[in-house]
């Protein structure tokens, strides 16, 4: 259960840092009036959406950390046979990086009000993300054809489950991205799209990070890290 504990420790540090700035040491029974340090929120809906996404990413992070904990525990058992990674995964990884870069570009374009660059960035991100997902499906077919079936070994099962869950999360992101693209094409101005594009970009970077962690674990590079995590508690 190492990786989930590492993840939660990280969250705990963030939470303590955040709480320390929220006046948890204050003495509310001595203070009256509208608190001095209360800053007016200029735009409630955008800050709520950002906070909402941040909390949601914490949930998704916890989900994947738990899957990795299970992976680390399960892989010690003697029946484990590693899966050779299909070469197409490298191409897919490249696609996902491109997708993330494109969205970052779109975010910048939205901030600077460049409508054409924004549309281009959004579309490129969507296309590359779709390419990533189809690449993942090809990787599944390839493994299946080589006889690495879901039920034949837990290493295979973990490969399918981890990539599948990651793919589903990206698919959910694509729905949000698709709606943003539609709005852009219907003539919503870049300023009004700024929040949506920013949220999509953050989510994309996070899913890229998750994918890189998953890839390093599936490829076995993270072996040492997993060993350390496992020694914390298993």
């Amino acid at each position, binding site marked *: *259960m190492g990786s*989930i*504990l590492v993840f*939660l420790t990280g*969250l*705990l540090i963030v939470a303590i840092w955040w*709480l320390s700035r*929220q*006046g*948890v*040491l*204050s*003495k*509310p*029974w*001595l*203070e*009256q*009036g*509208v*608190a*001095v*340090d*209360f800053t*007016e*929120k200029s735009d*409630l*809906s955008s*800050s*709520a959406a950002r*906070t*909402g996404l941040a*909390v*949601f990413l*914490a*949930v998704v992070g*916890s*989900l994947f950390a*738990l*899957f990795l*904990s*299970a992976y680390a*525990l*399960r892989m010690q*058992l*003697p*029946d*484990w046979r590693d899966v050779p990674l299909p070469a197409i995964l490298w191409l897919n990884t490249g696609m996902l990086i491109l997708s993330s870069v494109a969205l970052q570009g779109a975010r910048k374009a939205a901030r600077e009000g460049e409508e054409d660059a924004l549309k281009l960035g959004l579309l490129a991100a969507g296309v590359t993300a779709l390419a990533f997902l189809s690449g993942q499906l090809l990787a599944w077919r390839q493994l299946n054809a080589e006889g690495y079936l*879901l*039920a034949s070994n*837990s290493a295979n*099962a973990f490969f399918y*489950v981890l990539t599948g*869950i990651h793919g589903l999360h990206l698919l959910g992101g694509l729905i949000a991205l698709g709606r943003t693209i539609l709005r852009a094409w219907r003539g919503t101005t870049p300023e009004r799209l700024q929040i949506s594009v920013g949220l999509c970009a953050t989510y994309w970077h996070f899913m890229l990070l998750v994918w890189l962690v998953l890839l390093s674990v599936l490829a076995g590079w993270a072996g040492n890290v997993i060993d350390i995590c496992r020694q914390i*508690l298993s």
Partner: protein
Amino acid sequence: MTDVPLGHVGPAPAADVEDVELYHPHSWITKYVFSQDAKVIAIQYSLTALSVGLIALVLSWLMRLQLGFPGVFTFIDANAYYQFITMHGMMMVVYVLTALFLGGFGNYLIPLMVGARDMVFPYVNMLSFWIYFLAVLILVASFFAPGGPTGAGWTLYPPQAILSGTPGGQDWGIILMLVSLMVFIIGFTMGGLNYVVTVLQGRARGMTLMRMPLTVWGIFTASFMALLAFPALFVGAVMMLFDRALGTSFFMPAIVEMGQTLDRNGGSPLLFQHLFWFFGHPEVYIVALPAFGIVSDLISTHARRNIFGYRMMVWALLAIGALSFVVWAHHMYVSGMNPYFGFFFATTTLIIAIPTAIKVYNWVLTLWRGDIHLNVPMLFALAFIVTFLNGGLTGLFLGNVVVDVPLSDTMFVVAHFHMVMGVAPILVIFGAIYHWYPKVTGRMLDDTLGKIHFWVTFLGAYLIFFPMHYLGLMGVPRRYYEIGEMSFVPLSAHTLNAFITIVALIVGAVQLLFVFNLFWSLRHGRASGGNPWRATTLEWQTPETPPPHGNWGKEVPTVYRWAYDYSVPGAAEDYIPQNQPGTQSSAGMSHG
């Protein structure tokens, strides 16, 4: 007396929160069925959860009938008994307690108590309820599925949960259970995001975190914990579903079933236990922390005294929330793990007793020299303190490995967790319903019926569960369909079991009186007015009762003080609402 900066005291202009952000309902369907109003959603959540609770109550009756009078009720065979146990446990823990505290009270109280017009994502909030409702339908559907619901025990331990010897293991039961849990978690995540983000972003002007009532702190902390802990159950459910439906071996070891070697190998049943309890232990506190918060407010209001040690109460809530993530393996002392881990988990388990004890002391010190009004909500709150203390003390026994190992499979454990996680939170739920019912409906619940309900429930719960500790110490095993003839179980144990069953039937019946009261008072209850308990928190200061969609009319309130200005010396009334601008006389005198 401390110097207080008075410079900024005084009416401030109302914060400019636009009304147009809210989606206003246009028809009966959007107002009462697919409503985006947190208060309507709260009532939907509560009624659904209470209905599930009634089903689970009947299941417990059936179990008790079998335990008290084995062999008399022939329609309860061993399979049915295990199905009753499983469904009773899972329903009560997840679909009743979690849904009521977070979905019910969270939805109703968070926006009102922090001075918001609604949750920050009303549409997602609506989806959250309907997905929860779907999860309940799937769960209840398993009663009618071929083979009936799963009988794997509420912990659903593999491998037995998905083998043919267990009811529902090779039928629909376990699949429906796992799918229902996954759907529930998805729905809860939507709701939980709302509760957390509304507290973070939706607070009224002047409502700093440290001015929030402890109810909000409790629900907020618990929602955050639930968001992080439920994924563990989700992961376990996904992997078990794969094992059951697609033949993988995440949890399934090489195994012989009914004389046939199955095509599985190498899986780890222990892995599931880790995942399950990584969710399961925080779940105890996901239920307990909202209860802690609500009880703090009930006690403070009905003892007319500010809560003792408010900051300590907040810190203790946060500490319990954080610690509860590193104690899960104390549910697994008998799973054969490394003794050093047992030592580690025993230590962390006992450390949790410290912040919990702080809370109990602070409740008692709040009551000290208070002007205690023994009305129904207060009675339930006081009963909670006693009950939680009782259950917590037996927890100290079970937290130690050497004591836990012999007791682990006995009725002592059943008695312990029913005291601490069953009776205690339910008492708070009742107290809270009696307390906030006037705000929801504009009418008081009937007092006489309430007092009958309280005394029978409270005394009955002790008559049920105290003897059960004793049975456990004698060695009467839990999970058994019937005890049969065991040399160490004397005849008196059977008499005691029959006694417990009769009390359980009576206590269960009294809950029907409570349900009757809920509906009867809707029409015939005494009109309550806006603030019948003369309480300080914002939900009692709404311009209309029950509050309409949008809660506050034209202006959202501005908050000038903390939530506990009761019996402030020199003040005209014995309570000062949070949205009342400062008065010279009361400043800084209220610290107890």
